Structures are given as C-alpha cells and as structure tokens.
C-alpha cells in the first residue's frame, strides 16, 4: 500500500509541474496574441482591398504585355508556405501541412519557399526542393524582408523559373478557429473570377500610365510584399491563438488528472490506515 501511495504522489507532482508549464505558455500566448491580433486586424483591410482591386483588374484586363499578368503554360509551381517556428500549438502546423498535401496533389513539379522553422523542417524531411531557407524564423521577418522575398519571387518568376506562385497560410477567423488557406499570387490571370466574364460585351478599358508593363513591374513586387507581410501577421496571430487554445485544454486536462490522482491517493491512504487499525485490533485480541 505504501508503495502505491508513493507512486501516486510522484505522479501528482509530475502532472503538476507539466501543468505549470502549460499554464505559463497559455498566459504568454494570450498576452502576445492581443498585440498580434491588433496588427493582423490593422493589415487585413489592405490585403482585402489589394486583392479585390487586382481581381477587378485581372477581370477586365486585356492587355497582356506584362509577364505578370498573362497566363502561362509553364507548369512549375512555387508555394510560399507560412507556418510557425515552434510546436505545441495544437493542430496549427499539421493542419496547414495536411492542407498543403491536399492542395498539391497531382502536381509533381513544385518548389517551396518555407517561412517558419516548422515549415523548413517539414519540407526538408519530405525532400521537397526548397527555394531558399533564409526566412526560417517567421517571428523575425519584417517589412523589408517581405520586400526582399517579393523581389526574389518576381525575379524567379520573370526569368521563367516558375509558372505559378501560390501562397499557403493560416487565416484567423476567430480566437477559436483558424483555417488554412491558399491563394494565388502570380500570374494575375490566376486571380480571374468567372463572374467578370464579358461574353462579347464591350470590355472595360483601363488606362495605364505610362503603360501597363511599367505599372505592373512597379506594382507587383509591392503587391507581393504587402500580401506576404499581412499574411505573416495573420498567420502569427493564428499560431498564438491555436497555442493558447491548446495550452488551455492541456491545463484543464492536467487539473482533471490531478483531481483523480488525489482521490486515488486519499483512498490508498485511508486503506492503509484501516488496515493498520485492523492489525492492531487483531493483535490486541489474541
């Protein structure tokens, strides 16, 4: 009996120290989350307006002089995958990778530009060719890094290294729900929606100044940088929210475990006392 009491006591202690860690992580994630969410919320309108503007342009654009706008038959895909730096964030990373797998099904010629340590690790393990590993730490990527990444992508795209650029990140829906999302970055003709189709009707004409090629060559790197920056912000907020939820669940779970274990401990203690009394009584009687 005494042996099992000790074992239970040790177990309670170990669960307690784990709970301390999960509790601390939950609090840290919660306090960081507030700031990250503010940043993500602030940059969301830019992303939405930029995307809707470019979709409008893609829908009504008939001027295919810029390499960034016209559709290609180049079947090489570059995926920019934004994941976290660290684990213990519930399904944040694995959901994104699962989604990626589904998204890339049937495409053989893909390259990945990973952002975030987990993303680098995952694709390295899978032997997927990586475009660059320079941006491994998502927490350290700032605006000027985004411009550099955008420039890299633009150069590779215009030299014909890739035919399509795709972005995978985790969208922040609410504190409790984050959904992996993919969106097309280049060429802009990939942004085309069918509702804007003009069958034989007069097509809208947009005036580009000085000309569409110059405009797109100047705007596309900015657009990519902007979208990267905002999606990194949103992904980071998602990661923290996922971590907070996961750690909250872990803490609750640990509390429950401690409760059951202390019940077991007390039961064992009571049993050993009862047994002792029985032994003493039996000894006195004889």
């Amino acid at each position, binding site marked *: 009996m005494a042996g099992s009491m000790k074992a239970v006591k040790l177990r309670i202690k170990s669960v307690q120290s784990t709970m301390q860690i999960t509790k601390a992580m939950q609090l840290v994630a919660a306090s960081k989350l507030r700031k990250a969410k503010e940043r993500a919320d602030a940059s969301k309108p830019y992303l939405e307006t930029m995307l809707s503007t470019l979709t409008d342009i893609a829908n009504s654009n008939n001027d295919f002089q810029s390499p960034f706008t016209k559709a290609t038959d180049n079947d090489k895909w570059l995926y920019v995958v934004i994941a976290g730096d660290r684990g213990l964030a519930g399904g944040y990373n694995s959901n994104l990778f699962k989604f990626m797998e589904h998204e890339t099904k049937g495409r053989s010629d893909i390259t990945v530009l990973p952002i975030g340590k987990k993303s680098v690790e995952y694709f390295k393990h899978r032997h997927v060719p990586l475009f660059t590993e320079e941006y491994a730490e998502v927490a350290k990527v700032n605006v000027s890094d985004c411009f550099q990444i955008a420039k890299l992508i633009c150069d590779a795209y215009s030299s014909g290294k890739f035919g399509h650029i795709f972005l995978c990140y985790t969208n922040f829906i609410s504190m409790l729900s984050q959904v992996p999302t993919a969106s097309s970055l280049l060429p802009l003709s990939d942004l085309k929606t069918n509702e804007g189709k003009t069958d034989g009707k007069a097509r809208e004409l947009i*005036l580009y*100044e000085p000309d569409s090629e110059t405009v797109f060559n100047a705007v596309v790197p900015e657009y990519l940088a902007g979208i990267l920056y905002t999606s990194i912000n949103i992904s980071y907020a998602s990661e923290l929210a996922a971590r907070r939820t996961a750690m909250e669940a872990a803490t609750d779970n640990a509390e429950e475990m401690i409760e059951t274990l202390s019940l077991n401990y007390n039961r064992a203690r009571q049993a050993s006392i009862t047994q002792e009394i029985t032994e003493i009584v039996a000894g006195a009687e004889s």
Partner: protein
Amino acid sequence: MSTYHLQVVSMDGDVFEGEVQKILLRTIDGDVEILARHTDYCTAIGMGTARVTMEDGTVRKAACIGGMLSVLNGAVRVLPTTWEWSEEIDIERAKAAKAKAEERLKDQQLDKEARIRAEAKLYRALVRIGTHGQNEKFGNE
C-alpha cells in the same frame, strides 16, 4: 465642386475613407490629380507628398510612398506602402533617418544593393520632412 468616394488603405491599416473633391499625388510618371468621374485608371505610386482636398475644401497633406492607385467604375482606391498624414509624421525620426542615410552614402565601398537601400531611405526621409509642416523645400510646389 462634385466629389467622389476615396479609399486610402495602407499596409498599416485602414487610413481614410470618405468623400473628397480631388487628390493629387506623385506617381512613378509624375504628379497626377484625380477629379470626380475619372476614367478607369491604374498607375504605380512614386514617392512624394499627396494633397487631398476634402468635401469642404480643406486640404490635408500626407507623405505617400509606393503602392498603387486605381480607379475602377468610379471607385478611387489608393493603396500606398506608407501613408502618413503631415501632422502624424515623426519629424525627429525622419531627420535622424536622413542623417543616418547620408552618413551611409558617404561610404565609397558601399555595395550596390546597400546603396540603393540607403538612397531609398534618404528619399523617404526627405519626403517626410518635406511633407511635415509648411516648409516646401521638397514638396510639390
């Protein structure tokens, strides 16, 4: 004067939305002013001071750098990389950035990439300083 709906959304968040008479800003191809009922139009924004004439005729100035300007079906959208109203500009910071960039440009061994970056930094600082307050050393006048 007739007005139109202007939306300015920068990377740092929703900046301005409302009825304006006109907006003047510097594109990569020179200064452009958009009035109401403009044709569908798209251009890239350069670096310079933007002047927004509000519905009541007051003029607000802002440092406007990078991004794009689009007019589609009467909706005017300005998507700058940075947009700072003249009264919000941190002039001390801009001056410090200007001094730092000038210092860096003095270095003859600076490689091309770094030089371009330092020049861009200097230009941005100059735009901010020019937009701030009334000194128009570097403004649109």
